[in-house]
């Protein structure tokens, strides 16, 4: 797990009340299809990212890049931080 993935993993498990030893809960699981995060939760995650790393996630980012798993979200965050 990368550092970015770890931050997201901890934030999501705490905020969405997920047992961190739940075998389904991995960096590659689709958070929405598997019911870990509901529709309101998606916005909360984006707000967290924007505040924690002080970056902006635009509607274009959301449309162009899949952000369904922790690994996918971390990729977007890392590319923003690297830019």
């Amino acid at each position, binding site marked *: 797990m990368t550092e970015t993935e770890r931050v997201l993993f901890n934030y999501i498990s705490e905020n969405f009340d997920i047992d961190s030893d739940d075998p389904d809960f991995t960096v590659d699981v689709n958070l929405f299809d598997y019911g870990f995060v509901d529709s309101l939760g998606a916005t909360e995650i984006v707000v967290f990212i924007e505040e924690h790393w002080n970056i902006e996630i635009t509607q274009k980012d*959301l449309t162009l890049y899949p952000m369904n798993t922790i690994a996918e979200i971390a990729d977007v965050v890392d590319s923003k931080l690297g830019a």
Partner: protein
Amino acid sequence: MNSAIMMLEKTAERFPNRCAVRDENDSFTFSKLREAGLSVAAALMRDAEGNSPVIVWLPKSAKMLACFMGAMYAGRPYVPVAEDIPEKRLRDIAANIGAGQLITSGGNAKALKKPIEGFSIVLCEDALEAEPKESAALAAVSKVIDCDPIYIMYTSGSTGVPKGVAIPHRGIIDYADWVCETFQFDDNTVLGNQSAFFFDNSTLDIFSMLKVGAQLIIIPEVLHRYPTKLPEFICENGINTIFWVPTVLIAVANSGVLEKTKMPCLKKVLFCGEAMPNRQLNIWRKNCPDILYANLYGPTEITDVCTYYIVDRPFKDSDPLPIGKACRNMRATILREDNTPAAVGETGELCISGSALTLGYWNSPEITDRVLITNPNVTAYREPLYRTGDLAYMAEDGNIIYVGRSDSQIKLKGLRIELGEAETAAKTVDSIKNACVLFDADRQDIVLFAETDEDIKLRRLNLELKKLIPAYMAPTRLVCLKELPKTPNGKIDRVLLKKTFIEQN
């Protein structure tokens, strides 16, 4: 006009090179949309003769819309279904239709466990490449009459079997006329589509685009998860008109984004599908005071909309927003239980007549007869009347006010759900001995009461249920009980469950 596809025929001639529809991957001008429709029609007609329904099973996209055009050019009704429809539900729908064709992607077709009886599969990617056969298509269209079905939309059924609402071309032709005139849509209108294509709100977007040459922009599905980003999308795409379900407008209002992101291009905000609370509408009106707001009302059975109210005065947060008056060529009557007309201010069942009424539920005469009746107050001839099941009253000023439902149908995020359908699905799960589903309106929760000896987790249970029912019908709260309470005659005591677990919390 006999078929609604004639709207595309006219508009493709007027504005051949204007953009008709666009999504994140594709866009079609009106002439390209016509050509794509003719290609799909040629593929359908090559595959089979006749006018059996065409199920369109694709992700919401410009291509899906081209397939609807194709079905119409072939003189066949189309049946839109969600890309993520559970296979069982798709099979239930196909079984209800009986026989026909299924347009889908190669990927979807491969994922099917076995063939669908009575249905041939036409691949969307092949169909769009087929050689258009204009004269054959126009000959098929010329045989259509305006009381033939244009589409069949499947809605939730209380016994667990979805109901197919068949709508005539006449309903759509009238509706497009009325919508474009009333809201002054023209070729400068840019619509931002939110509604799923299997939900009839999308007919406003699709057919006003075809009618006046407006542009339809399909908002990427993923953005609906992030309401705070929707205003940004509206601005960047120059969208001036939206017709969304209140749930989305409420989420945008509650997020606070309206205070930050201004949308100078947005001129008209229409909504339908569930009650719009004035509390959130007032947030919109305060931040975007120059927009025209309109509340539309109508069940799938009457071609999307039958009453409307253009918001023309201030409302307090706690006031109900009227659903207004009947649209042109529609009649709204409020009937008492004994079928006599209710007085002003008296609550009764809202009933609708007009030529836009459903032709009935596909292959289901019994359930059709329950709601599509002959107006008991017209005796000289037969006037079909649709009983909506919605309770309403007429206010002094002639506007209709919606009160609630007379049965266990609910609306969640604008989508219509029969609680019985979720309940039937839950009862099929092995670890659940008996089940009851109730709605918590305050928290907008679908609550499943499960009789079980096991410690069931809602998230895991929903993974099972989503194989049977669409995700939007899945329970959002689970209460596990060793035994469900019973009434003296042995039925599940729903009143007690509601009192104990919903009203007490």
